[in-house]
């Protein structure tokens, strides 16, 4: 067993599909919200410009 102590740590790694899906869904929803916000902000700016007579 003393030999084992000198060996590097060997680990088993795996991915949780549930955690993976949760990340993907969060990014998808987050990005959709951002896209929506960008659209809304753009529309507001354009409206303000029209009202102000700048365009």
């Amino acid at each position: 067993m003393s030999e084992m102590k000198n060996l590097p740590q060997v680990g088993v790694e795996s991915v949780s599909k549930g955690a993976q899906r949760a990340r993907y869904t969060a990014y998808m929803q987050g990005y959709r919200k951002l896209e929506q916000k960008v659209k809304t902000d753009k529309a507001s700016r354009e409206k303000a410009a029209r009202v102000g007579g700048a365009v």
Partner: protein
Amino acid sequence: MMDFEEFKASVAEQIKDYLPEKYADATVDLQNVTKNNDTVLTGLLIRTEDSNIAPNIYLENFFAQYQDGEDLGEILQHIADIRVNHEMEQAFDVSKITDFDQVKDHIICKLVNAEMNADYLADKPHTLVEDLAVVYAVDLGGGEGGRMSAPITNNLMEQYGVTTQELHDIALQNLSESQIEFKTMRDVLVDMMFPDGIQEGDPRAFMLPPEEENPSMYVLSNADKLNGAAALLDAKTMEDISEKLGGDFVVLPSSIHETIVLPLNDDMDRHTLEAMVQDVNAGQVAPEERLSDHVYMYDSQAKELVLADKMEERQQQRAEAQKDAKEAEQADKPGKAERGEKKPERERVSMKEKLPEKKAEVAKNEANREHPVPSKTKETALA
């Protein structure tokens, strides 16, 4: 419901009941192991008399399953299956880890956060890429329960008789020969949720993003989706993506297992994207799987991955340099003198001088930047 301490003790006590007869005399130990982001995980180590090596099976994910309501017996059976699947037929040939000739084709790289891994990196050779660190491991193969690997420490590298740079080059060569996957988010979700294809009328299909002619989100990883963020280090892959998406692109560090690639969208500013990354990290990503809270970009001109804020500076400097070059060119046109529009000598000289000055200014700015790590710096943590 048990807490984690009780769960660990219970697993250690009962696991032998789920293992085959040959494990009757095995010793069962629990040990703390420092993993990514200096997270300490609990490894379950089941050693038989005739084996000189055994895998650590980390219990944190199993505890999460237990908390989600999974039956303890089923969890124990799953752990036992992992142990059996990773049993070495004979005593493990230690040279598979220590003999460089045997190891070199199995050296893999992983991408982690440099700052969050200060302790983990202390005894391991690594290469910095912006605020991320490339670390190396020996891949020992995989089974149903996951992949087995041994991290390369400074001691091991010394035994190999190679430098960090050589290790890095070998790992990148192996990476380039591995299976890297770049797919739309929709395709990844379809693979994950509908391995046998989408059946008509399946209500879960509504959860999928719509099919788009120009997808707004891609996932970059490897075939196993394990430590797949390292795919960012494959130069050919990055160039191919750049070609597909038409130049520079955005990289969101979703986890150490994969990154999310977005085509450039002028309407999305870095701060908004960064806030989203931080939000998802805090709410959805396990601490040991977090890669970074920053947004990155692929600079297609320099062919490298850079922090998005640095890329913004580069873009500004390039635009200014381009403008100055144009002005200098205009000022040097002989037609003006012929037309009697000769500019004062002083102004013409200053235009010519401006380009090298600008270059020096750019270099100075890069050197003075306050960042956790400088760009493209390669260094080793050899003690």
